[in-house]
């Protein structure tokens, strides 16, 4: 007799979709989206269209030297809008660094979003204003902050939940696994929102992991979901369902949204060195914004006037982005001396005074 062997079988789950490629609804009319479908789709469409325009303008500003760097979320708008709109505004969110759609949806302003990328500050919004933390660039680390925050939520006996965004590549960090394990063990009310956009800079999924991410999360004891990340409605339904279960005291949730990083890694990246144009084109054809729009048109959820209004709003935003950006000046170094500790230490005070005196000597 052979010993009990449990061989890993390749995961055959297909991601959950709500819209077909051409936008038609795959789910029955009776599906409960939590609110009227026209209201929901219009909100999601607007979030996504504004974010897309933001990306385009920021990209242009970087090319003109007004921003030092920009990381586009182009292609991932559905994964972000669908998720951020599926939780409550009072639920705290930990983004990674590419969650511009989510940030805009939460109300973070242009003046607060650009400084990091212009180099005029490291962050500019107050997380408590939007229940949306500042960006974290060190991969995977925000997962632990989010789990800790969620432990606090549970200690408080609050019915909030926490959502944290993470990328496919960042999942390879030890911190990410510790976060999954702690979330499960501590029964933290948290939802991990993984955007699997296929790439981590030049590294494809195949070089990053062997078994799918949602399988891994299940192995740690999380409830795990696989969803079509270019389908805003599917993401929305999935996260809504997952969030409700977490809020009701269920296991923490892990949602893997399959999407694509159309824009390349960053304005410094040259994706042509590592990815096929054919792959890119196939994903451009699956553009999440166009797909939602087709659905809205097919189902009569919005008319041209709506789309025109959003387009106009996007243009206004673009102009604002430009004017706000060029006017941003760096936070002075002296405020770093003051902000490193809650109360500036004597040593830093002396150093700051020396610095100010030295700078003053040139004026």
């Amino acid at each position, binding site marked *: 007799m052979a010993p009990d062997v449990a061989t890993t079988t390749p995961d055959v789950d297909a991601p959950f979709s709500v819209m077909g490629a051409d936008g038609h609804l795959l789910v029955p009319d009776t599906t409960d989206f939590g609110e009227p479908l026209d209201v929901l789709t219009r909100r999601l469409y607007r979030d996504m269209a504004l974010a897309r325009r933001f990306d385009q303008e920021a990209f242009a500003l970087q090319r003109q030297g007004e921003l030092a760097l920009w990381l586009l979320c182009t292609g991932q708008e559905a994964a972000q809008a669908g998720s951020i709109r599926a939780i409550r505004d009072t639920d705290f969110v930990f983004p990674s660094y590419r969650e511009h759609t989510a940030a805009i949806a939460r109300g973070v302003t242009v003046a607060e979003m650009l400084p990091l990328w212009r180099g005029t*500050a*490291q*962050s*500019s919004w*107050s*997380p408590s204003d939007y229940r949306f*933390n*500042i960006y*974290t660039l*060190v991969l995977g*680390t925000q*997962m*632990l*902050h*989010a*789990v*800790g*925050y*969620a*432990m*606090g*939520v549970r*200690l*408080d006996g609050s019915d909030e939940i926490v959502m944290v965004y993470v990328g496919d590549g960042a999942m390879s960090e*030890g*911190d990410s696994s*510790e*976060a999954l*394990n*702690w979330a499960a*063990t*501590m029964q933290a009310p948290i939802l991990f929102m993984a955007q699997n956009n296929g790439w981590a800079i030049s590294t494809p999924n195949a070089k990053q992991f062997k078994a799918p991410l949602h399988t891994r999360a299940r192995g740690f004891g999380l409830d795990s979901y696989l969803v079509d990340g270019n389908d805003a409605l599917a993401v929305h339904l999935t996260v809504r369902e997952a969030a409700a279960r977490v809020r009701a005291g269920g296991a923490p949730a892990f949602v893997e949204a399959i999407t694509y990083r159309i824009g390349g890694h960053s304005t410094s990246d040259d994706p042509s060195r590592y990815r096929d144009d054919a792959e890119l084109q196939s994903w451009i054809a699956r553009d999440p914004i166009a797909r939602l729009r087709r659905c809205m048109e097919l189902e009569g959820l919005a008319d041209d006037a709506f789309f025109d209004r959003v387009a106009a709003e996007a243009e206004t935003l673009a102009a604002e982005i430009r004017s706000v950006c060029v006017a941003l000046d760096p*936070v002075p170094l002296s*405020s*770093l001396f*003051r*902000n*490193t*500790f*809650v*109360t500036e*230490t*004597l*040593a*830093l005070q002396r150093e700051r005074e020396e610095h100010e005196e030295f700078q003053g000597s040139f004026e």
Partner: protein
Amino acid sequence: MTNLNMAKALNAALRSSLADDPKVLLMGEDIGTLGGVFRVSDGLAKEFGAHRVIDTPISESAIVGTAIGLALRGYRPVCEIQFDGFVYPAFDQIVAHLAKLRGRSGGRLRVPVTIRIPFGGGIKAIEHHSESNEAYFAHTAGLRVVVCSSPGSAYDMLRAAIASDDPVIFYEPKRLYWDKEEVDLAHAPLASVLDAAVVLRAGTDATIVTYGPTTRVALAAANIAQQEGRSLEVIDLRSLSPIDIDLVNASVRKTGRAVVLHEAPTFLGLGAEVAAQISHDCFYSLQAPVQRVGGYNLPYPHSGVEDEYLPDVDRLLDAVDRTFEE
């Protein structure tokens, strides 16, 4: 006043902090049911509940990383790292996040996390259990780094560290855990004890600057030196970042001679900074080069030779002698 050993004084400080502020939490490996491997949190899980004295999985990075998240939620976590040599898995969370979050957020966020680290050698421990890694954190802008050296300083400093709105790395010299002293548990937390160095023994001929485990070595050496007619002033730095250089300089300007003493390897150990600052600030008062006495520049050795590795009274007095030579 209560007669307590240092482990019990720390326990009392944790108890007072938990009692005074419902936002204070303890987290760490084996700190709950067991009370910690050094029993510093003995009885606290029973007294305050497992939700406030949390036995964690073995993941140092997560201990600090989730403490950061708890701090952002309004809690005041006190993390225990079981032994000095096991803080490195948490290094990223400490230096890239805990230390920087306040600055990165433009002063909008505060992360009042205390990280307790039993540290140093002299207890015949196995490898990775006797390290003095304070210089890593002292070099990290954004962290406060302090070291207690007696039951009384342990009580007052731990209270202050937990009450501080800044992250504090709190070192506890393992070999002093069983030292006893009268402690005043009525002291309220006082922020200034996190800044100020202390003259443990006044003297006139040379200044010994030290902290934590080697304060005892310095005091013992001062006793011997006294018998030989030499009066040593012993300063306990207590705070390693920032350092109370004014107190140190005042002493050295008086004595004209200085020796910096610690267990850590000397190369870029705290003594390098202290010696550099003294040499700079007291250039015209120094009668002799500042001497540094520390662990050798080796990984901490097996315990069978730790007495040779650790700076002791002989090596300290030898260094003092050198400041009188020439």
